[in-house]
C-alpha cells in the first residue's frame, strides 16, 4: 500500500478550529482513509471536540456523537452491542458499521480509564483510537496521566515529578484481539494497523502519538519531525499485540534488539519548550540520565515481553 493508493475520502472538511499544525486532524484524515464511510465515531471532550465548530456546524464528515468525558468506553461498547441486536432482530439491514472512538489521552488514561478497562475485559466490539498529545491540551496544557516526567504543564509548573502510565501496555495485558501504537511519522504503518483493526471484531485499541506544537511549544511546521524523533529516540515505541502476543515494529524493533542505537533524548527534548526549565536546571544532566535510563529499561522490557 502506497500513499498514491490511499482513498480520497476525507473525515475532515477545511476550516477546522484546530491549531495550525495540529496532529489530530492529520490522524483523523489517515484513519478515515482506512476506515471508510461505514462508520460511527464517538468523541469526548478534547481538542478534536473543542475545534469542531459551533452547532449547527461541524468540521467532521463522519457520523459522530459527542458523549460525556468518562463515557467513551461504555458508549462505544453499548452502541456496538445495540447495533448487533438491531441487525440480529432484522430492524437494520446491510453491513454493520465500524464503531470507533476518537479520544484524547485524558479520556483514555485518566477519566476514561475505567470504561476502557471494562470494555477491554468484556471484549466490546469497537476500535478505540487514543490520540495522545501527552497533556490536556484543549483546556490549555494541564498535566495528564500521559505527561512525561519533567514536562512543564500549567498544573505541573515545576515540571511533572513522575513519569507517565504505559496505557498501551496496560491495554495489551487485558489481552484483547488487537492493541497497537502508531506515529504520524510512519503514516503507512498507521494505515496498515487501522486496516488490520477494521477487519477484526472485538476490542481494538490504537494509540497514536501526537506531538502538540501548542502545548509542547515547538514550531507548528515540526509536528511530523517530532513524531519521527520520538520513535527514533525510543520515547515512543511502535508495536502491536494480538491477544497479548507482542510484536515490535520497524525502528522500535531495531532499537529493542540492539541493532540500532536510539538517538539521544537531549536532541528531541531540547526542541520542546515544555522541557526548557529542565534544561536550565542544575540537575539537567541527572534528569537526562534518568530519562535515558528509563528509555533503556522500557526497550529491554518490551524486548523481553515480545518473547512471551
Amino acid at each position, binding site marked *: 500500500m502506497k500513499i498514491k493508493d490511499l482513498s480520497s475520502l476525507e473525515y475532515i472538511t477545511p476550516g477546522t478550529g484546530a491549531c495550525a499544525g495540529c496532529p489530530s486532524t492529520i490522524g483523523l484524515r489517515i484513519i478515515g482513509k482506512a476506515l471508510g464511510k461505514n462508520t460511527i465515531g464517538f468523541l469526548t471532550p478534547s481538542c478534536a471536540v473543542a475545534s*469542531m465548530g459551533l452547532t449547527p456546524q461541524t468540521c467532521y464528515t463522519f457520523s459522530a*456523537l459527542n*458523549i460525556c468525558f468518562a463515557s467513551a468506553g461504555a458508549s*462505544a*461498547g*453499548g*452502541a456496538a452491542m*445495540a447495533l448487533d441486536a438491531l441487525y440480529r432482530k432484522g430492524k437494520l439491514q446491510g453491513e454493520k458499521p465500524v464503531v470507533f472512538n476518537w479520544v484524547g489521552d485524558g479520556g483514555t488514561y485518566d477519566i476514561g480509564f475505567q470504561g476502557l478497562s*471494562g470494555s477491554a475485559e*468484556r471484549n466490546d466490539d469497537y476500535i478505540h483510537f487514543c490520540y495522545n498529545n501527552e497533556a490536556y491540551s484543549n483546556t490549555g496544557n494541564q498535566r495528564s496521566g500521559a505527561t512525561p516526567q519533567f514536562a512543564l504543564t500549567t498544573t505541573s509548573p515545576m515540571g511533572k515529578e513522575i513519569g507517565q502510565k504505559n496505557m498501551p501496555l496496560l491495554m495489551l495485558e487485558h489481552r484483547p484481539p488487537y492493541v497497537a501504537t502508531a506515529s504520524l511519522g510512519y503514516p503507512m504503518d498507521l494505515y496498515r494497523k487501522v486496516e488490520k483493526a477494521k477487519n477484526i471484531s472485538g476490542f481494538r485499541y490504537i494509540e497514536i502519538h501526537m506531538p502538540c506544537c501548542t502545548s509542547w511549544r515547538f514550531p507548528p511546521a515540526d509536528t511530523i519531525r517530532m513524531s519521527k524523533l520520538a520513535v527514533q529516540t525510543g520515547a515512543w515505541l511502535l508495536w502491536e499485540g494480538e491477544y497479548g502476543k507482542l510484536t515490535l515494529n520497524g525502528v522500535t524493533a531495531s532499537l529493542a534488539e540492539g541493532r540500532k542505537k536510539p538517538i539521544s533524548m537531549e536532541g528531541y527534548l531540547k526542541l520542546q519548550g515544555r522541557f526548557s526549565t529542565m534544561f536550565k536546571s542544575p540537575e539537567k544532566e541527572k534528569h537526562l540520565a534518568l530519562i535515558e535510563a528509563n528509555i533503556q529499561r522500557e526497550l529491554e522490557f518490551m524486548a523481553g515481553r515480545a518473547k512471551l
Partner: protein
Amino acid sequence: MSKVFGSGNTACALAVKDADVDFVAAYPITPQTAVAEKIAAYIAEGIMDANYLPVESEHSAASAIAAASAVGARVFTATASQGLLYMHEILHYAAGGRLPMVMANVNRAVNAPWCLYADHQDAVSQRDTGWIHIHTASNQEIYDSILLAFKVTEEVQIPVMVNYDGFLVSHSMMPFETLDENKIKEYLPPFNPSWRLHPQWGGTFGNVTYSEQYVPYRESLTRDVKKAGEVIVRCAKEYQELTGRWHGGYFDVYRLEDASFFLLSMGSMGKEMELAVDLLRKEGIPAAGLRLRVFCPFPKEELSVLLPDGAKLLVFDRNLVYGSAAGVLLQESRAALYERRDDLRITGISVGLGGEDLPAVLLADRARQMIQEVEK
C-alpha cells in the same frame, strides 16, 4: 396473559422482556440486583431477544444506553441510590439530547451514612435533570408502568424513570398479570425515533453551542416535559382500555368524597396511607389519600382540581430538602398552589427516611398532629 406470583424486581424484569427491548446495560446494586440477574437469565435462556452488557459501573450503564438509544435501539437500565447518583451527568445528557430510554430506579437511601432501605432522596435528587419521574407502589403497577414508560418515552423523546421502593416493593411477593405479545404489540408500536446515529447521516450530535443557541434547547425541553403529563395520562387511559387496569393518571386517589384533609405521598407509603385514611375516617375525620404517580412534570392544575375550597393538604415526604421545612413534595405543592394560598392550608413532614417503618397507625398519628397544626 399469565398470572405470576413474584417480587417487584421480577415484575420489572418481565415487563422489560415483554416490551421487546433491544439492549440493556446494568450494574448490580442492592436492592435492584435481581432485575439485572433476571434479564441476563432471560436472554441466556433465549426467551428474551436482546443484548445485555454487564458494564463495570452505573455511569457506564447510562453511557451505554444513551449511545444505544442514539443508534435507534429500545433500551433499558435499572439502578438504585448510589448508582443513580453515579450516573447523574448522563441523566442530564440523555434528557437534553432527547434520547428515549426507560430506567427503573429502586428507591434506596443515600450515603453517608450507609443505608440499604427505602427512601426517595435518590430519585428527588434527579428532579432537575429533565427526566420524567413516575412512582409506583405495587408489582402490578411496576409491570404496567414499565410498558407505559416505553410508550411515553418513545412518543415524547424524553427519558422516563420508573421508581419503586427498595425491599418494600422490590422484594415483596405479590400476584400480578403479564400481557400477551399481541396485546403489547397493540399498545407499543415499534421504536421510530426522529433521528438516529448511522453512517449515512454524516453529521455530529451534541456539538458545542453558544449561549443564544443553547437557550432554545432548554426552552423546548421544559415545554415538552410539561406536555408529557398529558401524554402519560392518555397512555394510561389507553392501557386501561387494553387491560381494564387503572393505577391513576397523575394521582391514585382514595376516598375523595367529602374530604377536607388530603394526605399526599409517593410510593408504597401511598398505599399504606389508604389504611391510615380508613383509621382517620373511623374517627370522623374526613381524610382522603393522594398517591402522586407523576413527580415530574409536577401536576399543578390537576392537584388544584382535587382540592376543594378550604381544603387542608398534609404532605408526607420520604425525602428532605435540607435546611427547609420538609421535602420536595411540600415545596412543589406550595409552589403549585400559591394562587390558592388564601383558601388552602398546606403543611408537611418528612418520614420514612432510611426505610423507617411506616405502619398506618404511625401515618394516622402524624396526620392528626398535622391536622392540629393547620387548624390553629
